[in-house]
Structure formats: C-alpha cells, structure tokens
C-alpha cells in the first residue's frame, strides 16, 4: 500500500486530500500542518511521496523542500507542490527547484489520486513498492 505524506497548514486541505486519496486509491495517508512537522514525519515514516503546500507560515514549501534535499535519507522521496493557480513565472520558479510536479488548488477530490499517479508514473493496479531489503 502506498503511503503519502500531506503537508499543509490548512485543515480543510489536509482533510479533503486525505479522505480523497484514501477512498479513491486506498493509499495510507500521513499528515503534517507545517514544514517542520512534515520533515520529522518524512524522516520517521519514509513515505512513498509527499504532497506539500507552497504557502505556509514560518517555513514555506519551497524552503522545506530545500531542507529535505539536504538529508540523504529523505532526499529521494518524490515531492509534489500544491499551490494556487499561478502565472508562468512562478511555475518556472517551482520547476527550477527540482520538485517532481506541481498540482493546483482547488483540486478535484475525485481525480487527485490519478493526477498524482500520472505525475509520478504510478500505474493503477501496479504492485506495491517492494519492501526494503533486510539488512545483514
């Protein structure tokens, strides 16, 4: 079962995204209401992907992403930024960060899982990611 970490300071967004992804894709959802909390959860839980808001108080999404990139234990986790519809300049700025994709608010709860799967190349019905190899 895929595990997705949702990082957003807005309760509504976290709740709707979580129930949408659980109901439509059967994914397990982790949530955090700040970049700092999200980093802690990412380190502890190693989700398969992270969906992260851009505008958050204190540490914003792009800054949180840059911090994550500096830690080799979580730098490999694909990150999708979640943001209000933006103009071309902002899109290029986000793309230059090195994130895996950008999703726009408001999202459609019925298609969110498919959008994420399409961006990350996850095929519906594909097997779960293989478990990590046992350490010897």
């Amino acid at each position: 079962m895929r595990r997705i970490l949702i990082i957003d300071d807005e309760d509504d967004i976290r709740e709707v995204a979580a129930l949408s992804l659980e109901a439509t894709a059967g994914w397990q959802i982790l949530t955090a209401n700040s970049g700092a909390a999200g980093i802690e959860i990412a380190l502890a839980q190693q989700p398969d992907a992270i969906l992260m808001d851009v505008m958050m108080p204190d540490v914003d999404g792009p800054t949180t992403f840059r911090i994550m990139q500096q830690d080799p234990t979580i730098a490999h986790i694909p990150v999708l930024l979640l943001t209000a519809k933006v103009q071309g300049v902002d899109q290029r700025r986000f793309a230059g960060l090195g994130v895996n994709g950008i999703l726009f608010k408001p999202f459609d709860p019925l298609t969110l899982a498919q959008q994420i799967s399409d961006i990350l190349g996850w095929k519906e019905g594909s097997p779960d990611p293989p478990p990590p190899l046992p350490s010897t």
Partner: protein
Amino acid sequence: MDKKTEAKVDDLIASLWKKNLPSLRERLNLLDRAAAEASSGALAEATRAEAQSIAHKLAGNLGMFGYPQGSEVASKMEHTLKAPTPESLATLATLAKQLRKSISAGL
C-alpha cells in the same frame, strides 16, 4: 472510478463542509468587514492582511468542496487585497457579495 466510491467521497466531503461551516461564516464576516472598511476608505493594514490570507485560503479550498465560482471570486479578492489601489478597493464590497452568493446554497 465506480459510482459507489464517487458517492462515498461526495458524502465525506459534504460532512467536512458542514463541520467547517462555523469557521467559513467567520471568514465571510471578516471579508465583509474588510470590504466595508475599504468602501469607507479606512481599511486598516491588519484587516487587509488578514482578509488577504482568508481570501487566499478560500480560493484554494472552495472549489474542492464543489464551489469553483467561489474559488474564482475569492482569488480576485486576494489579488485586490494583495496590491490594493483606491479603484480596486472600491470593488471589494461587490466581490464580497458575489462570494456569498456563489456559496449560498451551502451556507
């Protein structure tokens, strides 16, 4: 996606909407206050900043609850409050009314 799953998601979102109604009403009231202050030429900076933040949040979430027009209007309010001019501030009252009307079915 099968109809059963779609209905389940719709029901869950409707429940969330109801749960969040008190908070939504407070946000709408604050936007109305900001619009009233703007109309009288006395929009305080603190009110402006808070209204901008609320408009941003509503722009991001009303659409996912099934009110895309609400998101559009809230987005216009956000941009007006972000870089206000006397002319644009004069439109806030109208936008605030449009916002309430766009989600009136759910209030």
